[in-house]
């Protein structure tokens, strides 16, 4: 029944092909001459295996390609469970071709089950060679090739180490096609580690005659070739930069890394007395490796998607521990003569969803600052001016160690344990001479010497667990942490203050000669939980809870020194113990779908503040705080994509910050006799409301990007001070709550290319106003500052060898005062910079960097310009461009100085100015300089 139909079909096909083109036909069978029905038959060009046509065999195993244009072809047949077979069809045939019977050989069962099915390894056929990927066969670490071969299908390893493949002896083993240690095949298999092998190939050993004639026969022996893995992820790299220059300048920086798939190990060290070329972000990334971006994890949960937006409480940045942490992020800032040394060691281990990382880091920074400053204050009836000269010598040292362990237990559970510890020592010696004037008339001079020595340490441990549930979108996160910090200051204070009468004669003198020991301690336990429940595909309900308890104790002992005697100063010596509890619970409903996210939430928080304050020894409690503050905190956020690649957001949040216990204590702090602070037990939390909106859009085809942001903040209740200044200009200050403070800020930026990849520009404008109320001599004063900050940058990269980067930025600030409008003023600070990098002849690079800063203040007649020009010339040397030699001239005009200027304060600090430096870099990975700067996005 079937064959007549087939014949009919064949006939129909035959009729249609009566052109010059011809047909190719054949029959596919297995080795037992059984026809293989519907096996795939491909017609390929002989030259490069390009597929011309394909078909399938009929019920009788036959196939036919019609309308074949003349050429040299390969007919390739494939059938499940069989080794594909090819037959060459030479070009000279002009008539219909019958390639005859193509006999296909069954794929060895072992190869099929073990290699293809179990190991999921592709097998490759190259004529008589069958090759498979050895890396897919798992062997224990440290195994030899012999151990690996024992696992491979079709291969047997005898007890003496001789190898059989498909029942035939393997007489030759080659490695990467080359004979390995002569003719003994066991030498390679017994000695090479299995980890180094990527492929195992077995083929029939050809006799010399067969090699020449290409003839094949049933060989009795086999050859095995082992292909070695390329060293992909193993490596090491390192870099060292050393420089020496005039003015005794020195710079040294080096790093070294070793890594493989599981382990990353690195060392870094930096030393310089220039404040330049310290640890850059790239150096940090080389040092931290896979841990470079591992920041989060320990925060308190809050509103927002996945609990990302969070609260910080109890001095995440401003607490006692920040005194210790800041040592490691010491920025020499504005001016001064620095001397810095730091370095560390990092070890990361990552395997099977387990990560361990450990870091040790040492940091030492020294800076000498020699300068002068001027501060003005305005009162209703008078103004004051304080001129000071200062000399400050600061040296800090810190050791830090971090250990972290994370594990994905399974796809639903994640655990993280993080501990860190730090130890610091800081010494600060300061000398200051001040002259205080009231309406231009000298009222007092001070001569102050302070020597503070600080020792501190901290220990912190965090445990975090995250759980996802089988139900998509349901998740739970809990974390708990404990922090212990202690800081001890030993402070010698010597000051002589002379007060002058109207006749410019010394009226009285105040002398302070004190030894001050201050021990502060903080223990904080935090626990947080977050739970997200999906209500539907689009709605989520999120609940969080934050708990914190912190205990802070302080012990300050002040001794007056007269001669060799020390006398406890009971007025200034204090001990305190504070206990602050926070409970915060919040819940929010979120709509999240197709790029629209809306969150509405409400939280409730309760602060419980308890503090006992007393003098030294058996002194009774002189101050007591026991306050509970509760606040509701609403939250709203909306973001969506109104147009393609354009994102818009709106947000409202309300924040409540608790007052510090120091400010609540009803006691007088006269540690600084010129500035006496009195606590205010009536202080309530600071509460502000913030509304914000943003829009950004990018247009990838033109490279245009636009960003707009606006925010406004209303302070319902804001911390401020009420100051009373007496005729001797001694200020008595008390913390208070004020209302009416507010600020707004609008900014926009635009990036676009003027000529694509050649000239691009970025401009930004920021306008903001800030109104700060405060009380001076019981009169409310609003200080209003309105600022404009325009910025423009143009990058010019006309050819690969030239890069020019121009920047201009200005800051205009108009400050107005309610009570003393004659003091209204405007300041203007401008910065212009131009940088040129050029690749010149003979691989020599030139870099010129000019920076021009201008400070202006109409009220104080400030008009100051600081032009800084840095020039360098460099060239890559050595094989593989591993070396670079560079000559740099810093501050060609010898004008460098640290200068700051604001509405009430100006300071100037001596800095390292002109010097010439010769430096040499050696980088194992080679150096590839470019005249263009890179940006990632």
């Amino acid at each position, binding site marked *: 029944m079937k064959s007549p*139909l087939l014949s009919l*079909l064949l006939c129909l096909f035959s009729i249609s092909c009566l052109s010059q083109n011809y047909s190719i036909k054949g029959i596919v069978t297995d080795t037992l001459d059984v026809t293989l029905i*519907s096996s*795939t038959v491909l017609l*390929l060009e002989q030259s*490069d*295996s*390009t*597929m011309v046509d*394909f078909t*399938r065999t009929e*019920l009788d195993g036959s196939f036919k390609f019609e309308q074949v244009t003349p050429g040299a072809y390969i007919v390739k047949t*494939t059938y*499940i*469970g069989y080794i*594909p077979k090819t037959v060459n069809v030479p070009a000279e045939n002009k008539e219909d071709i019958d390639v005859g019977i193509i006999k296909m050989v069954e794929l060895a069962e072992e190869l*099929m*089950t073990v290699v*293809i099915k179990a190991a*999921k390894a*592709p*097998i490759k*056929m190259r004529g008589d060679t069958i090759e498979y990927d050895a890396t897919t066969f798992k062997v224990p670490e440290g195994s030899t090739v012999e151990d690996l071969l024992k696992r491979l299908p079709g291969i047997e390893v005898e007890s003496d180490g001789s190898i059989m493949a498909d029942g035939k002896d393997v007489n030759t083993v080659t490695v990467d096609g080359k004979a390995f240690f002569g003719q003994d095949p066991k030498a390679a298999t017994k000695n090479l580690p299995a980890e180094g092998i990527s492929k195992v190939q077995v083929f029939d050993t050809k006799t010399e005659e067969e090699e020449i004639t290409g003839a094949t026969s049933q060989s009795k022996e086999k050859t095995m070739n082992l292909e070695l893995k390329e060293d992909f*992820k193993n*490596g090491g*790299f390192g870099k060292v930069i050393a420089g020496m220059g005039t003015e005794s300048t020195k710079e040294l920086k080096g790093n070294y890394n070793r890594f493989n*798939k599981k382990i990353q190990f690195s060392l870094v060290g930096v030393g310089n007395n220039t404040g330049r070329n310290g640890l850059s972000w790239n150096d940090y990334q080389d040092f931290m*490796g*896979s841990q*470079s*971006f591992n920041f989060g994890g320990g925060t308190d949960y809050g509103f927002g*998607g*996945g609990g990302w937006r969070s609260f910080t409480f109890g001095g995440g940045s401003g607490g006692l521990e920040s005194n210790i942490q800041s040592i490691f992020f010491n920025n020499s800032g504005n001016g001064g003569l620095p001397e810095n040394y730091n370095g560390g060691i990092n070890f990361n281990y990552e395997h099977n969803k387990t990560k361990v990382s450990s870091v040790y880091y040492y940091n030492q920074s020294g800076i000498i600052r020699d300068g002068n400053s001027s501060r003005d204050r305005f009162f209703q009836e008078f103004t004051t001016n304080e001129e000071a000269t200062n000399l400050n010598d600061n040296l800090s040292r810190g050791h830090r160690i971090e250990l972290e362990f994370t594990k994905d237990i399974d796809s639903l559970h994640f655990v993280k344990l993080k501990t860190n510890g730090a130890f610091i020592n800081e010494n600060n010696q300061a000398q200051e001479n001040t002259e205080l004037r009231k309406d231009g008339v000298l009222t007092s001079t001070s001569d102050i010497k302070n020597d503070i020595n600080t020792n501190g340490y901290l220990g912190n441990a965090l445990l975090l667990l995250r759980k996802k549930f089988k139900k*998509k979108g349901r*998740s739970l996160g809990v974390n708990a942490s404990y922090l212990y910090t202690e800081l001890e200051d030993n402070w010698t204070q010597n000051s002589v203050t002379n007060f002058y009468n109207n006749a410019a004669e010394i009226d009285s003198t105040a002398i302070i000669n004190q030894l001050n020991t201050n021990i502060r301690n903080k223990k904080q336990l935090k626990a947080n939980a977050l739970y997200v429940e*999906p209500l539907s*595909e*689009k709605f*989520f309900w999120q609940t969080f809870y934050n708990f914190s308890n912190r205990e802070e104790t302080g012990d300050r002992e002040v001794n007056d020194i007269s001669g060799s005697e020390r006398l406890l100063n009971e007025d200034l010596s204090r001990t305190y113990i504070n206990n602050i509890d926070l409970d915060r619970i919040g819940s929010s409903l979120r709509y*999240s*779908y*197709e*790029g*629209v996210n809306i969150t509405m939430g409400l939280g409730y928080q309760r602060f419980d503040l308890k503090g006992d304050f007393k003098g030294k020894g058996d002194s009774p409690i002189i101050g007591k705080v026991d306050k509970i503050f509760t606040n509701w905190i609403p939250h709203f956020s909306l973001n969506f994509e109104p147009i*393609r690649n354009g994102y818009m957001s709106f947000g409202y949040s309300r924040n409540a910050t608790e007052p510090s216990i120091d400010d609540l204590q009803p006691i007088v702090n006269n540690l600084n006799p010129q500035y006496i602070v009195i606590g205010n037990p009536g202080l309530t939390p600071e509460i502000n409301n913030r509304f914000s909106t943003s829009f950004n859009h*990018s*247009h*990838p*085809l033109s490279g245009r990007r636009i960003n707009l942001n606006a925010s406004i903040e209303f302070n319902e209740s804001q911390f401020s001070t009420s100051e009373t200044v007496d005729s001797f200009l001694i200020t008595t200050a008390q913390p208070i709550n004020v209302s009416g403070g507010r600020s707004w800020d609008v900014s926009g930026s635009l990036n676009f290319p003027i000529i*694509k*990849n050649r000239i691009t520009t970025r401009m930004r404008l920021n306008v903001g106003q800030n109104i700060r109320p405060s009380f001076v001599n019981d009169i409310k004063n609003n200080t209003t500052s309105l600022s404009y900050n325009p910025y423009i940058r143009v990058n010019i990269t006309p050819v690969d060898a030239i890069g020019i980067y121009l920047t201009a930025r200005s800051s205009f600030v108009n400050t107005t005062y309610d009570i003393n409008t004659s003091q209204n003023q405007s300041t203007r600070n401008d910065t212009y910079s131009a940088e040129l990098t050029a690749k010149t002849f003979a691989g020599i690079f030139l870099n010129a960097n000019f920076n021009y800063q201008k400070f202006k203040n109409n009220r104080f007649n400030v008009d100051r310009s600081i032009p800084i020009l840095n020039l360098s010339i460099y060239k890559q040397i050595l094989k593989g461009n591993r070396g670079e030699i560079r000559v740099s001239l810093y501050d060609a005009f010898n004008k460098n100085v640290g200068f700051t200027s604001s509405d009430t304060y100006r300071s100037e600090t001596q800095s390292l100015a002109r010097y010439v430096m010769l430096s040499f870099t050696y*980088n194992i*990975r*080679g150096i*590839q300089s*470019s005249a*263009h700067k*890179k*940006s990632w*996005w």
Partner: protein
Amino acid sequence: MIIYSIVMIQKKILLGFLIFIIGGSLYAQDVKGVVTYNRKTDYISIISKLPHMTKEEVDRMSLTWGNWASEGRDHHLFFKKNKSLYQPKKRENDNGYSWKQDQFVLIRDYKNKEREDVIETLGNLYHIKGPLVKRKWKILNEIREIAGYLCMKAETYNPIKDQTIHAWFADGITFSGGPEGFGGLPGLILEIDINNGDAVITATSVDLDREDVTLPIPKKIKGKKITEEKFDAIIKKYVKETIEGKKNPYWRVRY
């Protein structure tokens, strides 16, 4: 056991073939089904090949991100009566924040040799409609199993993005389509490997037993109407310019 099951599959196909032949045409490919593919992109490898990257930057990047494993993105291929539709699986809103997904739908009609694509990229929505251009495939000598099917290897080249593409096709499934718009081979493509692992699209499940398959063709197709040549020219220009600008074009353009 495994061999046995393959024999079973063979028998199924055989049976299927008998039906085709009785149905009248050997070339009738009335095989239908839904295939789920997982697409993984190896950005480290892609960025490493960009001409502006130095050895130091490549090492830094591999050190930082080398152990970071992406889950990839699931895609579906629906096929029936010589027609197929390929699109990403709708992303499940897992962490409670939703991003708008770029539209990406590829429709292929192998019988009428037509293509219709809806692709949202580079800030535009493009509607590409036109004839299906035959690709030049080379057939290689390798076989491998994917999702229970024995596959053969084929190779082609994409001049727009300078990519060597390897396809693994199952000649046991007589549908000439595949993922990412690739097709024209004697069987269904179960894996596409772009530039030796830079992007790999592998079938994770093959469902041929469905009672019925409907291609979820969008009712209203919006977007700028554009020919394949013009669309390719836009992509080619963007890739070229972005590389010239020493940036990675493949954050924005599908690799």
